[in-house]
């Protein structure tokens, strides 16, 4: 069996790369943090990896909008490479700022067709024009401010390889721009019918609710999205911040079942690669 290799993308202002690398290694992958400049210099390096993670942080200070400048960089320099990565059946995970980047590049929610290179002469332009068709975005929390708090997540997708169906998980969020909004009702209906919603914010009993159960006012409590392949996941909460029992906010209460829920996402990714690639 080949080694499972994960690449954790670094860029100016990305700041969750070390703990993300650690989580991947706990899950059994060999993880490497690589600056985006190195990938742009040598796009073929992605061939060596089966998982790419866009970690959390404030890429380029979240200037203009969260994840926007990095998304612009990916669109103009790496769109083909990332599309190929997905077409090759590999996995893409975007956490927090990484999720924002995936949405702002159009990789999420994606529609399968968009992601395929169509051999046009000017692929970059082609990619770019797709922002015209971006029907979904992530914007400011209703509260108007950054918040760090723990949330329960209910899986919605049967198909997303990162997600363990039926298992409610508990993770922290830490963001100011995490509200998923769609341009219109039709987009929302489509997202749901096509199973693109990966996670919803719920309370500890699994029910949707208002603030702070839904910490940012996200449409229909959407916390994470997947694409048509189920091999791309973006989510606002931070699975890499709950890989050990002592990270749970109430671990000192010694309640039953303090499992490191964040590991499920990394474990599932590694398991998928092991079994399928």
């Amino acid at each position, binding site marked *: 069996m080949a080694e499972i290799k994960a690449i954790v993308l*670094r860029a*100016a*202002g*990305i*700041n*969750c790369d*070390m*703990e993300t690398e*650690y*989580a991947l290694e706990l899950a059994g992958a060999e993880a490497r943090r690589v*600056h985006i*400049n*190195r990938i742009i210099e040598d796009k073929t390096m992605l061939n060596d990896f089966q998982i790419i993670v866009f970690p*959390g*942080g*404030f890429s*380029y*200070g*979240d*200037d*203009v*909008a969260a994840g*926007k*400048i990095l998304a*612009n*960089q990916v*669109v*103009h*320099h790496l769109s083909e490479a990332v599309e190929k990565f997905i077409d090759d059946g590999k996995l893409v995970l975007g956490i927090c700022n990484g999720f924002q980047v995936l949405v702002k590049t159009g990789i999420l929610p994606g529609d399968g067709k968009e992601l395929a290179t169509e051999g046009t002469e000017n692929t970059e332009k082609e990619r*770019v024009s797709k*922002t*015209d068709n*971006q*029907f*979904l*975005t992530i*914007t400011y929390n*209703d509260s*108007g*401010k*950054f*918040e*760090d*708090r*723990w949330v329960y997540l209910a899986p919605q997708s049967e198909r997303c390889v990162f997600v363990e169906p039926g298992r409610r998980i508990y993770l*922290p969020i*830490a963001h100011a721009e995490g509200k998923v*909004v*769609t*341009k219109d009702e039709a987009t929302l209906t489509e997202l749901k019918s096509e199973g693109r919603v990966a996670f919803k914010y719920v309370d500890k009993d699994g029910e949707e609710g208002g603030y702070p159960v839904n910490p940012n006012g996200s449409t229909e409590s959407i916390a994470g999205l997947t694409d048509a392949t189920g091999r791309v996941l973006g989510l606002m909460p*931070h699975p*890499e*911040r709950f*890989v050990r029992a*002592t*990270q749970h*906010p*109430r671990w*000192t*209460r010694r309640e039953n079942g303090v499992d490191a829920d964040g590991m499920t996402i990394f474990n599932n990714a590694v398991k998928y690669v092991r079994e399928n690639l």
Partner: protein
Amino acid sequence: MSQWRFEVFNRSGFADVHGQSVLDDIGELGIELVEAVQSAKVFLIEAEFDKDFAGRVAKELLCDPVCEEYFIGRSKAPASLAKATLIEVHLKSGVTDPVAQSVMAALADMGVKADNVRTARKYLLLGEIKRSQADMIAKRVLANDCIEDCVVGDEAEPPSPHLKPYELEVVHWPITDLDDEGLEALSKDKDLFLNLIEMQTIQKHYRDFGREPTDVELETLAQTWSEHCVHKTLKSSVDMELWHGLPAREDTAKMAVPQQVRFDNLLKDTVFRATKELDKDWCISVFADNAGVIEFDEDSAVCFKVETHNHPSALDPYGGSATGIGGVIRDPMGTGMGARPIANTDIFCFGEPDKKLDEIPKGVLHPRRIMKGVVAGVRDYGNRMGIPTVNGAIYFDDRYMANPLVYCGNIGIMDKDKCFKNPQAGNLIVMVGGRIGRDGIHGATFSSGEMTHEHETIFSHAVQIGNPITEKKMLDVLVQANEAGLYEAITDCGAGGLSSAVGEMGQELGAEVDLEKAPLKYGGLNYTEIWISEAQERMVIAVKRENLAAIQKIFDDENVESTVVGRFTADKKLILRYNGQQVGELDMEFLHNGVPKYSRKAVWETPELTEPSIPEKDDYNGELLEILSSYNVASKEWVIRQYDHEVQGGSVVKPLTGVCNDGPSDGAVIQPKLDSSRGLAISCGMNPVYGDIDPYWMALAGIEEAIRNIVCVGGRVDRIAILDNYCWGDCTRPETLGPLVRASQACYDGAMAFGTPFISGKDSLNNVFACEDGKRISIPSTLLISAISIVDDIGKCVTMDAKKASNVLFIVGLTEDELGGSHYYKIKGELGANVPKLDLATAPKIASKIAEAIAAGLVASCHDCSEGGLAVALAEMAFAGGLGIEADLRGLPKSKDCRRSDAQLFSESNSRYIVEVEPDNYNAFAKLMLNLPFGQIGKVTEEKTLIIKSEDGKKIIESDIESLKNAWQRTFDW
């Protein structure tokens, strides 16, 4: 070259959260005529592209396709809106604009090189407001005069960003022939903040030298000799006159003759002395580098530094606090060969936020605006740096209204074999990170002086604007360069910019600097400005010539600018050149050791205070609720949640804890190495009101509180290191210096009693505000103690929330009649006299035994009993745990004079811990506490009620925990 203007608005149907928050702030100003606020982002781009491409820039880069829409050009207020006012806020030219830099980079990704990008904010206010009200809104809510210009209406263009290029002209400031008056005038005219003795010393030096100083030489001396940089006051010799206030528990009978105490060097004789005498082998570097360094484990060391950024935060709360945290992060980064930052702390002092506008002195921002701005600044910088902000406190007192205190701390981790620098002659001086601008000129001298109502206009240039991403990028590459061993020394460009960084690093060597080589944000800076600018996000490293190419590749690879600006020499001279022409030459010896030594007078007279007479009652529920709601005690969740306290994945004990994740933790614990179960406990202690009674006891209370908070979460008691941060008034006044001396004496006594060395410290003096009418407002004497310790096994940490019904509650430590300076007296409008007096013999024993009990796994929860006393501590434990508590004051160990119920409930006697113990561990715990003052105070109950019975069996407190929690949370439910 064409200039394009883009405006980006929220699409209707999508909430304009910025507009809404501005509207809320306008409401808080008392202007109710504004019905709605729409905000827009404005981008001004100078670049060669056509209209089609402009459309792409708008669509693909600047505007969110879902929730925003754009307009290219200048949009007018809709004609249908007769009652609309347009206000645009632009950064003053020269002020750093991080968004503009990112847009430039993004345009480059799109294939266009822009010549200039600027950003602005535009507000459309709907409602019938007068021009004067618009101006007030602009000034009070939308913009800050120091860094921003407001343009009201829709016609005016923002000022041009272009500055004239600089042509070299060497300027001399003749000094040798001046008389005393002339010397003082020169110091004042040039904002040097040098006093007459210092000016005379400099004059003599130049007379001996036989020439006149250049401007840059005097500026360098002023920076290096500033209070901010050399701490003249704390290092001066002090003659202290003590009037019946002795640093021990003695009777206070009026003395006929004062006691005289002399210190040759105040700091050396108190704070340093304790560290020296304790001589702990785990202290690696103390009071020597940018931060104090202690051992963490076999391979690693950690360093800790706390700084203040008070004056800048008073003028520009957001920028001031952001650069405060940004600056202190660079201290560990510049300690030894550079540490990686792993945690931030922040402690603020503000005026009470409910002040009416007419209660605010002229030239002072409203405390609520200061608080919001300061929190936002720390939040945005700390979060963007990816450093968890894990511990802090906020203290309110109206004497902080004009001089808010903003303490920012940072902890870093480093290899144990890289704790010292080794710059050598011949090393290249390399500046890394951001570019130099006019921002932050005279910051060191400015922060050493007194503030006045005119400061806002005069010292706007001392305000600095941070760009955390520049600092984060710099950190990322410096960590790699350090691992590769490619530099010999590193330090930060702190107050004084290059002048302090190069001056300090080259102190034992000598240095030559070619100032024209330093990269600038924009043209027009003269050599002095380049040398002393405090433009942020820069470090200086010493690099061997043969390593230059390799280290610059690391920097270039991640788009971090680095420039060789000079080299270190061996002649102990500092030579400054511009385009090859010498513009300054200073003796390192004179620069660093020439500052005259001061002798100062201090006096302390114990104030004649009395205890108030407050009738005793049978019901203290009202008082408890009022204290829980009071600003100092109330929940700071609104602040804490805005900080990312979990990034880096090392969170163990979070600032908020308990069954609903919202109880107040005593201290924080982090796990700096993800693969090791060793942790760091971090805490702080501070109580300025005690200083109004006696700063000696205030300082001891602060030290003990910080230690207690470490112990409460499971930190080792024998590995605690502490930091001192003095914020004081005008210490040239003997009656202001007296309290500082007393606090310093307490620092020595406290450190020795606990075996707890000081490893770093800093002072900020002259926190005085001169009002327009000449009245001077001084802050209360404020000493912050920060503490750090090792946790052997994070799995044994405990938190303060009550865990389980039927568990037993003990209190360890004696309760005395010590309501002086308490929150109970505060809500009654009293100060009192009986300030809590630390028992130096017993307190360390208690701390050790509690730590032992926690390490032995005997403790279910542990909470320090401090602000608000026993009643508040029990209430917090109960509601944090979602359980009830039944307590009985008969079980309380108390002194003979502590008979009254209110004293028993609310006294703030030091070194008291409330400990929850499982019934099975009862005997083991009690056995450990033998010979200490301790008692069983009650038990945890299933009924969600806090009941406290008085000694005669009356339920003097009976309240459901929801009401208590609600009282505690509603104050800052912003």
